[in-house]
């Protein structure tokens, strides 16, 4: 009940980037063609857990375990509050930052770009409407490239992509299971 067990049992909506990534990487036949994930030097990171969180301690029972990472050499800032666990969010923030840095350094040779290409190929048969939505998304990604990225936005994007993949699952009104 308490395990996150995210990757295994995908509910009606994707929970965060990690299962999504696993899903795509494992499903994509060309997973092996992806370049290795970028390793970031921990010494170049400024990590902050409670940035701008305001008053707290016993007085307020917060539910957010946001992690903010700043890559000192480039000034890129990413934030992750996808899960309730700080240690998970730390991992996601690092993944997110690695993706950002790769996109910057390698352009369309980066993992995300290659994956996006695979995805858009798959989508070629999808309806026009969906395709338009997807392109808008890619465009948005493009403009985001240099800017600060909130994982939340990323999540929304990821959500949209996945919804398209899974025949438009509705928003979580009630659990699909009942």
């Amino acid at each position, binding site marked *: *009940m*308490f*395990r*996150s*067990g*995210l990757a295994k*049992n995908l*509910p*009606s*909506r994707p*929970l965060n980037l990690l299962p999504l990534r696993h899903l795509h990487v494992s499903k994509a036949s060309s997973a092996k063609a992806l370049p290795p994930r970028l390793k970031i030097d*921990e010494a170049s990171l*400024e*990590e*902050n*857990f*409670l*940035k701008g*969180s305001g*008053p*707290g*301690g*016993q*007085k*307020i*029972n*917060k*539910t*957010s*375990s946001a992690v903010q990472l700043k890559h000192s050499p480039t000034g890129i800032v990413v934030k992750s*509050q*996808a*899960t*309730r*666990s*700080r*240690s*998970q969010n730390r991992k996601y923030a690092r993944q997110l930052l690695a993706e950002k840095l790769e996109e910057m350094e390698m352009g369309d040779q980066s993992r995300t770009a290659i994956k996006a290409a695979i995805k858009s190929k798959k989508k070629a048969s999808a309806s026009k409407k969906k395709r338009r939505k997807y392109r808008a998304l890619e465009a948005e990604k493009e403009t985001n490239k240099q800017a600060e990225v*909130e994982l*939340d936005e990323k999540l929304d994007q990821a959500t949209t992509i996945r919804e398209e993949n899974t025949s438009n699952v509705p*928003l*979580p*009104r*009630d*659990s699909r*299971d*009942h």
Partner: protein
Amino acid sequence: MPRLPTSLIRKAYSYSPLLPLLLKATRDLALAKNELRWLQEHISSIHRLRKCTPKQYLPKPPTLSQLCRIRSTGEPLQYILGSQPFGDLEILCRKGILIPRPETEVYTTRLSNLLLRHGSIGNGNVESLQILDLCAGTGCIGLSLYAALHRQIPDVRVRAIDFNPQARNLAWKTVKLNQHLGRLSPSLSKSQFDYVLADLLNNEEIAAVVQSDATFNIVVSNPPYISIPAFSRDTSRSARIFEPSNALVPPDSVGITGERTGDLFYDHILRLSWRARPQIVCMEVADLEQALRVMRAVKDMEAIDGSLWEAKQIWRDEIDVQGNECSTEWNADVNAAIIGEGSGRAVVLARSWGVDVIKHDTAAFG
């Protein structure tokens, strides 16, 4: 509290009709969306559990809208979900026992990382470490220190003290759960995690559970510290109504009024620390003002009993958890370094090798 703007509520509604309920509790759209997802995950996990357990043993799972409605009353999410991640552990949460706070998690993580960075601990040269966790509640501080340090130090012992028997029962359930999840060593038993019931404000009771010759290396404590005025002034409704007030506000004490009503426990912790002679003491506080008041109390004690502490620090909320260098200012009045940014959160005192541990960021590695 100001009303939520209608446009925000509409935005939430268009995402999901249930979201405005959560928005009422979180007052933040991104967080409300996250909570919706976490509640949904929770329900899915109950359904999964029911698949492998005979139905008659399990209550009917709630629906998402039921849970959202409960949450909208201000009931803490952690009581609804039953737990809160803290460090590497999953800490069980139940009504009547204070929920672990993210601020507590941050300084606890920093403390354990500083300890692991210390030469002899990092090199595996330290055989044993004794930790005293006063006002332990769920046990989150002591247990997560245990989990982090056990890998490097073969014999870590935690003595936890609280006067709430429900808290002790829950802490042991938390131990079992985390053993099951593989996050706590299966060998962890009562000799490593000794949770005893005693009233910290009662000298006889404390003398009975911490013998006068007992020594500890580390004393940690997150005692009730909210003053009576601050409880009605700036404590969130959800904490005030749904969490036990005896975990938040010290009891009334004759002759103490105003902000100082929040300081009651620190004298007791300091006196106990004087006896137990730990290398490090780490106490949570409400803000910088309280931290400075505690530091002055330390100074007054030293004026009478002689000086014990060789290094004093105040940690703020925004602080490097790995123990790396952070912005630091010096307060000459209380002879303490104030580290990080944001609200003052912990008073840290050190002597002997504890000084090397907490000064890693400034001296040894600077």
